[in-house]
């Protein structure tokens, strides 16, 4: 039951978000700089799934305790958890097929597309939340937080892109866009930029 456990304080929730982001960043860096193979991919997938679940549970409890939980938010949480599971499954499948079967041509594109399905599902869920939320104040906060997330993404992508262009920093894959946007969105929700 969503309200069975006590809700984290704002600082506690922010600490959870930051702690999980740091662990994921370390994991992602380890995957980029070291060849961790299937074990590394499995570990990261499990971490992402576990962190997603704990974040949504903590977020839901906080929203209920703060009186800003809505039916649309409940549907969003369920969709995001589904999307997270699809992402993990897609990523596993794609890595396994890529390593074991080494597909070529259109099949390679299809396999490489598999991890995107879960992420695109998340993007769709975010859009549906804005469309389905009937509480105008909560929607207003979501739009502000989304704009902050977008600003974070555009800023980091631009600065990093030029640093990368001049060979100052390593390459960052384009799929990092959604996690960076989500981090910006989460940061805005935990600070005054998203609460107003």
């Amino acid at each position: 039951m969503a309200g069975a456990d006590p809700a984290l304080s704002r600082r506690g929730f922010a600490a959870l978000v930051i702690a999980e982001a740091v662990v994921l960043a370390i994991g992602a860096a380890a995957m980029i700089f070291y060849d961790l193979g299937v074990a590394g991919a499995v570990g990261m997938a499990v971490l992402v799934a576990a962190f997603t679940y704990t974040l949504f549970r903590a977020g839901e409890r906080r929203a209920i305790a703060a009186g800003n939980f809505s039916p649309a938010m409940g549907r969003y949480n369920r969709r995001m958890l589904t999307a997270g599971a699809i992402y993990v499954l897609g990523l596993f499948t794609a890595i396994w097929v890529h390593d074991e079967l080494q597909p070529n041509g259109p099949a390679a594109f299809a396999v490489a597309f598999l991890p995107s399905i879960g992420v695109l599902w998340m993007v769709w869920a975010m859009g549906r939340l804005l469309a389905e939320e009937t509480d105008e104040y909560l929607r207003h906060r979501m739009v502000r937080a989304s704009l902050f997330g977008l600003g974070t993404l555009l800023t980091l992508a631009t600065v990093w892109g030029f640093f990368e262009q001049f060979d100052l920093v390593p390459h960052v894959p384009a799929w990092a866009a959604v996690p960076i946007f989500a981090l910006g969105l989460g940061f805005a929700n935990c600070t005054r930029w998203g609460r107003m």
Partner: protein
Amino acid sequence: MNNRLKVLRAERNWSQSDLADRLGVSRQSVNAIETGKYDPSLPLAFRIAELFGLAIEQVFTSPTQHQSRGF
């Protein structure tokens, strides 16, 4: 935008949650409107006024009007 939401709510002995339930919005919304952090849309402002049986200008006053009257 200034409003008398807190006073009107207190007169009826309603909590923020009571008012939120009657309006079909979150308690956070009521709190944000009441403290002036968020200005409601016109439809929601009308709903609030109708709930209290008042005209909209009896619940909400414009900041410029508020200043010119020297409150």
